[in-house]
């Protein structure tokens, strides 16, 4: 017995269990399941349903006690089988069922219902209740995504606790009391939470159902596969469920390393686009102002011929590719290899000019794991609003900041105590963020003046002395990224450089688009080769003779297209017109480039201008791996066939290579994975076999045999300080006008919409009425005006990529006038 364990006896079996563990968990981990409804391992126990009553003897004789509220103690005896325990449990189930409607045949939960299952296992055979049951109006919508049936509810407080304790949107609560207690929302305040779907998943009955899933399937009709969500960069583990070749539901998987079971609603409900009837199903070739359908052979031959022409007449550097961050590592590897070995160009970039330096994202030193957040003494978030852009990281940071992390038992009592007390959270962002309510320190600054604030924070003088002192308390975990599209990307790196001077500090660099890290690791960047290898690294010989001069990045590619230097451009799951902050530049570049190919799921604003459009397989339609922001490689799996004639990116590129008289040498995605495991140093040994069977939570690279040849030290050059009378902050929101959201209508309509947010004083000073015209460095729009006293004076905010508003540019200087 170590100092971190105690001995208890469960049903006559002596067990050694972690100190501080709850009886219900200790028993379960050792094979004794104690029935429960309200207890959830990721939330504080409430002991309300009373289903887990068992005999616990702490030295004063056996007493009926709730196992979910009792921590183990040395010498404790637990009896889960005594007739008195059985009677108590039967009694509770009878009580729970007296008012339950038993409408299981028409309930979504039927077949996967904890109430059904535990009634079968622990309940009485029949009910003695002959009175009238309690009635409520049958399902009422409590948001656009969730329906509530109060008759089915057993009042376990899982949903109410989740929204208060975990997500921090306490919009769903108990109303009334006693027999008339009901769960409901407050009048005129719908359950508009970014995380509402989690309550549906953890509801132990069919009280909360997802509007999208209602009556769509019975659990026994579903096929399922585990996968990794690709809406954000956290790499959340999910189960995809489908019936009759249609994806119907995503569920969160409790992976300790990443999402701990939770999902954002964007992830959970954001699959509508896969089933969209707007999907591209056949190759298209430009025909005047429109397109005509073509065969794969015809389309690929045309591309091969035109690319060949460009390479012959203008050289390989006249060809460029954008994209790769939305697909798998295998797809990205294929793109990287295609550009280097078939075309002979380093002009490729998976970033859309809206994120950070490629080396910094791929190979920065002192990279943190997500789980380091739990044990940090101090957490610094200087980057995007996590709640909007990295929702499950928001949950993790929030939990760490408020403390009392359930499930973190005293394997190390110091860490346990620190975690219970909560980390010191410092949030730096130009405007209000979702983490502000739990932050110990919140610093705001005007876009363009971040470097000034960083210098002040480093000096730690005046009002920043306290913050600086907090940051000196390690371990420190810093989540750094670009706070918005008008911020110089070098600022985040300079923040990281500062963080490296702090004690025991680790960094999570934040980027957009789920597989940006994987694509960079596969070399989809002008300066990188697979496996975190610099383009100039001569020891990388796997691809033979490849160009060694750094190529053009996204911005330079677009500028090159505009200047006539780029003659052919491949878009692989990229929509620069909507994604590049300097939308005007992207717009003109795509118009200017003589030959444009788009590989995509939809005819996006960018693909609509292409000469050839090729239909690609989407999420859930192809197998592969993705890499999250920690460098964690995980599997994504296929469960439905692609739309029409769609194919995975790698297969399209492989086919194209052959038609260009070359070959990528791929036979399958798994074969590519094997090649990656051999060719890319950081990915050595990471095969699908390992990920499918040995490491379900993924492998963090480099690990095992892997090495990381490129080690990048963040540069301490934050970029110029830009001051202006009025500066623009433009950042992403969870729901926007991106291509996947646009084709997922039930989420698309939740986008906040294009608007100009301005401080009331500025609105008055500028004489703004209901609408205003805003002119940025690379775009303009006339937008509704929203006054927002939480903004700093002189700062205007426009949510990025909303329906009806183009990107406004990457320069913070902006002018606003009444319209």
């Amino acid at each position, binding site marked *: 017995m170590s100092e971190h364990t105690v001995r208890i006896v469960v049903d006559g079996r002596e067990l050694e269990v972690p100190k501080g563990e709850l009886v219900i968990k200790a028993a379960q981990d050792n094979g004794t399941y104690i029935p429960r409804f309200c207890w959830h391992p990721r939330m504080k126990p409430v*002991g*309300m349903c009373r289903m887990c009553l068992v005999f616990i003897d702490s030295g004063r004789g056996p007493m*009926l006690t709730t196992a979910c509220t009792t921590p183990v103690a040395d010498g404790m005896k637990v009896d889960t089988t005594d007739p008195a325990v059985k009677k108590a449990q039967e*009694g509770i189930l009878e*009580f729970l069922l007296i008012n339950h409607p038993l409408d299981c045949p028409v309930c979504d939960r039927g077949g996967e219902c904890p109430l059904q299952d535990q009634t079968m296992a622990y309940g009485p055979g029949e009910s003695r209740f002959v*009175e009238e049951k309690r009635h409520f109006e049958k399902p009422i919508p409590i948001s656009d995504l969730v329906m509530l049936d109060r008759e089915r509810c057993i*009042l376990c407080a899982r949903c109410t606790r989740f929204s208060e304790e975990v997500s921090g949107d306490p919009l769903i609560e108990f109303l009334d009391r*006693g027999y008339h207690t009901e769960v409901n929302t407050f009048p005129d305040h719908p359950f508009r939470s970014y995380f509402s779907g989690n309550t549906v998943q953890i509801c132990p009955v069919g009280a909360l159902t997802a509007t999208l899933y209602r009556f769509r399937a019975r659990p026994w009709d579903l096929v399922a596969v585990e996968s990794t969500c690709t809406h954000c960069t956290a790499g959340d583990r999910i189960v995809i469920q489908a019936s009759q070749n249609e994806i119907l539901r995503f569920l969160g998987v409790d992976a300790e390393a990443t999402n701990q079971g939770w999902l954002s609603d964007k992830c959970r409900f954001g699959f509508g686009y896969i089933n969209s009837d707007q999907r591209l199903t056949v190759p298209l070739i430009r025909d005047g102002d429109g397109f005509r359908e073509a065969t794969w052979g015809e389309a690929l031959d045309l591309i091969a011929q035109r690319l060949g022409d460009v390479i012959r007449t203008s050289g390989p550097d006249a060809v460029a590719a954008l994209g790769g961050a939305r697909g798998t590592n295998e797809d990205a590897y294929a793109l990287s290899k295609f550009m280097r070995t078939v075309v002979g160009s380093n002009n490729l970039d998976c970033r859309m000019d809206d994120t950070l330096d490629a080396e910094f994202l791929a190979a920065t030193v002192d990279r943190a794991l997500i789980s380091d957040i739990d044990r940090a003494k101090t957490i610094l978030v200087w980057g995007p609003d996590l709640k909007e852009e990295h929702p499950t990281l928001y949950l993790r940071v929030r939990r760490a900041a408020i403390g009392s992390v359930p499930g973190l038992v005293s394997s190390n009592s110091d860490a346990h105590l620190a975690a219970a007390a909560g980390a010191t959270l410092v949030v730096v962002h130009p405007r209000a963020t979702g983490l502000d309510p739990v932050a110990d320190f919140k610093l705001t600054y005007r876009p363009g003046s971040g470097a000034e604030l960083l210098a002040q924070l480093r000096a730690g003088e005046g009002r920043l002395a306290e913050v600086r002192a907090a940051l000196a308390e390690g371990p420190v975990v810093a989540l750094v990224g670009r706070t918005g599209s008008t911020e110089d990307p070098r600022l985040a790196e300079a923040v990281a450089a500062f963080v490296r001077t702090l004690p025991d500090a680790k960094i999570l660099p934040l980027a957009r688009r789920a597989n940006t890290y994987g694509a960079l690791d596969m070399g989809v960047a002008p300066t990188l080769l697979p496996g975190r290898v610099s383009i100039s690294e001569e020891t990388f010989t796997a691809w033979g003779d490849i160009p060694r001069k750094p190529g053009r990045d996204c911005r330079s590619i677009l500028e090159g297209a505009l200047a006539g230097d780029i003659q052919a451009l491949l878009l692989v799951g990229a929509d620069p017109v909507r994604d590049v902050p300097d939308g005007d530049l992207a717009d003109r570049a795509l118009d200017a480039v003589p030959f444009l190919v788009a590989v995509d799921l939809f005819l996006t604003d960018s693909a609509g201008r292409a000469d050839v459009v090729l239909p690609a397989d989407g999420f859930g339609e192809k197998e592969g791996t993705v890499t999250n922001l920690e460098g964690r490689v995980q599997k994504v799996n296929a469960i439905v066939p692609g739309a029409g004639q769609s194919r995975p990116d790698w297969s399209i590129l492989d086919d194209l290579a052959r038609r260009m008289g070359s070959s990528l040498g791929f036979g399958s995605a798994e074969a590519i994975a094997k090649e990656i495991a051999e060719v890319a140093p950081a990915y050595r040994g990471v095969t699908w076999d390992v990920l499918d069977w040995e490491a379900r939570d993924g492998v963090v690279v480099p690990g095992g045999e892997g090495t990381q040849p490129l080690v990048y030290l963040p540069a301490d050059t934050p970029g110029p300080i830009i001051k202006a009378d009025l500066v623009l902050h433009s950042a992403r929101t969870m729901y926007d006008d991106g291509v996947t959201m646009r084709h997922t209508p039930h989420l698309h309509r939740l986008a906040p919409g294009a608007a100009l947010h301005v401080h009331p004083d500025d609105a008055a000073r500028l004489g703004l009425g209901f609408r205003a015209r805003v002119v940025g460095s690379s775009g303009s729009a006339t937008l509704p005006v929203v006054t927002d006293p939480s903004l700093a004076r002189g700062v205007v905010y426009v949510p990025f990529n909303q329906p009806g508003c183009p990107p406004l540019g990457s320069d913070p200087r902006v002018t606003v006038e009444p319209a």
Partner: protein
Amino acid sequence: MNETRLVTRRMADHPADSHTIERYEATGGYSQARRSLQMGRERLVELVKESGLLGRGGAAFPAGMKWSFLAPARPAYLVVNADESEPGTYKDRQLLERDPHQLVEGIIIAAVANEVHHAFVYVRGEYARPARRLQRAVEEAYGRGYLGKDIFGSDYDLEVVVHLGAGAYICGEETALLNSLEGHRGEPRLKPPYFPAATGLYGKPTIVNNVETISNLPHILELGADGFRKLGHPEDTGTFLFSVSGHVRKPGNYELPHGITWRELIFEVAGGLREGRTLKCWIPGGASAPWFVPADHLDLEITKDATGRAGSMLGSGAVVVMDDTTCVVRAAQRIVRFFAHESCGQCTPCREGTSWLEMILGRIEEGAGREVDVDVLLDVADNISVGLAWPPRMTTICPLGPSAVSPVSSITRYFKDEIMAHIHQAGCPLR
């Protein structure tokens, strides 16, 4: 039999103005609070311990011992439980309404004894007039420098907040009260921690005392521990306020020492029953308590221990007397309905079970009972309160659910025939 007036002395002597600060000070008020500041903490706690004062909120826990459990962390809080809501209990109402300064003085003494600088009085939501009187008294005490900064010219600060509840019986349960005071739903907290003295209001060490308990403090200082002990029974020192109601000629609050018999209380103090009526049963200590019947309990001594040994409790001193015109099924149903209505709804057995009991009793009373209903009643009751034991072996977080079982266990124990008569005659035999 005469009352032994201590906490009700002033209101008896000066019925017109016992609640005013002028009368209070003219009758020696606030002198003990002044003294307490000189006595210091240890001596005060010791004095209360020696006095043997038991908590008057219902649990009869030794007040001095509760104080000595107070954790050393500061700030600590004093919370006065004035959420008197037990059916039949109305003693604190009188103390609040008729002698609020006595309570304020007690609060000062308790605060000094426990090194507390913030006290809260949680007053039952329906007690508008008592709350106004208390509020006024607190303001007057502030005005004279007895509360606030540097009370009585010392360097001791004490803030007192009067908080009105929102009409929930459960907030009389001390941890539900603390939740309510913090702005949460009035729901009892999980135990452990068992005592707010370790983790209470806002997670800080907290003393929760009843109005009557606190009101006794100035008298204990005045009489000394021995003087106080002499007033009462050796086991239950001091006086005790009985709220006698129901079928007696003279219902009301009576301040008496422990140790008299039920016969004396009902037939002498409360004037006995009306002409031609006989005693059927009574509730000895509030609606939660199992009932007593004349054949077994009339000559029992009224003390905490004797009542406990007989399977019930003195609780908050509410004695509800029922004569032979009472339908016990209806009476039990009314009490169960109260608890069902007041259940906070957290625990399944209480939320669902109490209403179920109410429905079955209602059905029997209306004449739609079945013989099997008696068994169902007892088994449902058993699933709320295992073995129908008293004190209860609970399946719930707090004793509210098991309290609803008391009338069921009482009528099935003493009046089975009357229940069966309801069932066989398809209606109430007393109507």
